[in-house]
């Protein structure tokens, strides 16, 4: 147990901070064209991605030819922390960088890597993840979008929903049913779908807040024809790959949750004296107790995350990933809820952007994205009970 990192890690941190000071995207450019969708890549973001790729800071754990520097897990953690602390968005296409590119490296052909993964890393393209459907949400294996083999092609029909960034993405990592006659987990394949293929219709869905910046979409697929070389990995092996892909995402997502919560807590503590001063003694005492409790949650999220991470570094596995997903998202949601309560009528104001200003109800509602997607809180509890605690499937 140690409270501080080794000197070599701190040297790595300094090196990155020096690089970042010179290379971070200018704030004016970000303000002029802010991140607005999971796959919209503003010019400053593309340029920043390219600089990170060229200098080995895009995914530090990868080899240099993939935009990294073969850094260890602890160094990667420090890197993510510093980016976050600096308020610099690492990518404006998290699905592409965090899930789709690594999945292509694991399962794709050399041609697929060259044509689809590398342009993502250089900031030239963006991608979306087509998993969920109207009847396949938590029960993803129930997906029905059909891909039927026809000579050297697949013909695809069906519908996706909640596809983040489909309105801006260049291609989609599309989950399809390729064999309807086997148990549902065994007949799923992944196919690369360029979004400009004939037969693809994207309809943005306005979200609960910030209606001017739709990110979720319905994607309709009508007799879409794709060559068989767009199949990723083996036919009917999509379910296994899906679990692999999402694992890429989960190993450090907790850190974003924790850091988001920490900055929200810092803002709350800064605003608190002013807001509390207007309250009567009893109301004030209640509010102070809530803040203390939320502060405990914030510190606990970091402690849990760091401990799980230390286990991961030592043993290569961390069965508590689900625990961190569950805790960091729910605790952050409660913090956002209370921040709005404390702010009072001012929390009702809108127009604060897609992620909302601290204390706004918009910010609170936005947190539900994290407790519903990537395995809802209820699904995480099922996973903890069954896979971590060994309770029988009901």
């Amino acid at each position, binding site marked *: *147990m140690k409270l501080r990192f080794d000197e070599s890690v701190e040297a790595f941190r300094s090196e990155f901070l020096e690089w970042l000071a010179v290379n971070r995207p200018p704030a004016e450019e970000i303000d002029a064209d802010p991140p607005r969708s999971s796959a919209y890549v503003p010019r400053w973001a593309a340029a920043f991605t390219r600089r990170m790729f060229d200098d080995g800071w895009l995914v530090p754990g990868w080899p240099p030819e993939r935009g990294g520097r073969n850094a260890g897990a602890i160094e990667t953690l420090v890197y993510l922390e510093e980016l976050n602390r600096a308020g610099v968005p690492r990518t404006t296409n998290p699905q592409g960088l965090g899930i789709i590119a690594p999945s292509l490296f694991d399962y794709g052909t050399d041609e697929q890597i060259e044509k689809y993964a590398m342009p993502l890393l250089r900031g030239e393209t963006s991608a979306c993840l087509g998993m969920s459907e109207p009847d396949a949400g938590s029960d993803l294996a129930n997906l029905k979008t059909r891909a039927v083999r026809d000579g050297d092609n697949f013909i695809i029909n069906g519908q996706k929903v909640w596809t983040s960034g489909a309105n801006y993405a260049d291609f989609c990592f599309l989950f399809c049913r390729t064999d309807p006659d086997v148990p549902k987990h065994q007949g799923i394949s992944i196919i690369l779908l360029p979004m400009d293929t004939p037969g693809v219709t994207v309809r943005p869905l306005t979200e609960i807040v910030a209606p001017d910046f739709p990110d979720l979409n319905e994607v309709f697929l009508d007799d879409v024809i794709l060559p068989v070389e767009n199949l990723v990995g083996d036919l009917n092996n999509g379910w296994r790959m899906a679990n692999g892909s999402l694992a890429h995402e989960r190993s450090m997502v907790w850190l974003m949750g924790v850091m988001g919560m920490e900055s929200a807590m810092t803002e709350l503590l800064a605003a608190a004296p002013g807001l509390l001063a207007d309250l009567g003694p009893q109301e004030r005492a209640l509010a*102070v*107790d809530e803040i*203390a409790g939320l502060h*405990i949650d914030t510190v606990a999220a970091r402690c849990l995350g*760091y401990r799980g991470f230390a*286990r991961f570094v030592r043993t290569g596995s961390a069965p508590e990933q689900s625990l961190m997903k569950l805790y960091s998202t729910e605790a952050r949601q409660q913090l956002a809820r209370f921040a709005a309560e404390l702010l009072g009528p001012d929390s009702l104001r809108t127009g604060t952007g897609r992620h909302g200003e601290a204390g706004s109800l918009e910010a609170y509602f936005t947190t539900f994205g994290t407790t519903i997607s990537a395995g809802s809180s209820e699904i995480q*509890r099922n996973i903890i009970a069954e896979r971590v605690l060994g*309770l029988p499937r009901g």
Partner: protein
Amino acid sequence: MDLELSDDQFELRDNIRAVLDGACPPAVVRAVYEETGTSDELWAQMTELYWPALGIAESDGGLGMGFVEIALLAEELGRAAVPGPLLAVVSQFIPMLAEAGASGLLAEVATGARVGSLAYAERGRWGPDAVATVAVQDGDGWSLTGRKQAVLGGVHADSFAVVARADSGDLGAFLVARDDLVVVAPEVIDPGLGLADLVLENVSATVLLAPDADVAGSLERVTQQAAVAMALHTVGACRRIFEVTLEYAKVREQYDKVIGSFQALKHRFADMFLSVERANAVGYYAALAIAENDPARAEAAHIAKAAAGDCQRLLVQDGLQLHGGIGYTWENDLHFLLKRAKAGDALCGSRAFHRAALADVLGLVPETAS
């Protein structure tokens, strides 16, 4: 920041656990509850293993381990609902003697020759403001008058480090021999704690920390150790409640299924697990902050004890509820753990006490109200 135990720390924990599995099975705890036995033999075994010496500096005759190791020991003692004075000795008496630089006394404690505890709380309250016991200088020594409450391990102790207030208003700490004061042992729900109240009437005492303004800082350091050890002690009991309840849910059948297959219960198990992991993680964070004397130690200690309070609330509630009728019986061993976990919150400052103290550290309490 690395919050996982090292290999050596895991080994120490496993050793302690193995010893307690053998030396302190529920039957031993039950004997203390039913007054058919005592914790004396267990204490003798633990002193043979030098457990009281773990956290004493090598120069004072101890094994020189840090506070994380003491936290580990406290957690394991909670896990087995161990009866006797060891928790009081390692997390309250020794830290006070170390703060006072009392080498000679520490050497005696290391061998088990001296058994002591900290007498701090009064009128049900933990914290410097509650101390009303007065200390008056009397020739070379001091004379103390007042009442102390809920002294952990007090029925077993031969010495007490008593916190009292001098005329100046400053607090000090004083050593009092058991024979010089009146020890009252009330009947309490967990007799393994050895709780005692102390009545002091012009009792002669030797000084450990002479009353002055600096004592406040010393006392904070000592009471932080007491609180964090009690937090992990509570969490240790809670983790065992969790394990026992989980095992039960995997075998107890109703409606032709094990009850652990009902989703309503699965989700409660997930939440219980989270609560234990959460309290455990912040507990060791606080222990580490104390071991490294980090500036965050005060805040971390309040967080640890408050989170342990959250944890025992949920684990006692659901642990008992999910056992059904069998958990409601004296015959089942579960209640030793339930009672230890509840007691853990009542001692060394409750959940509410530490949340309020945390709010103070965070600057949320205006000057006039604090």
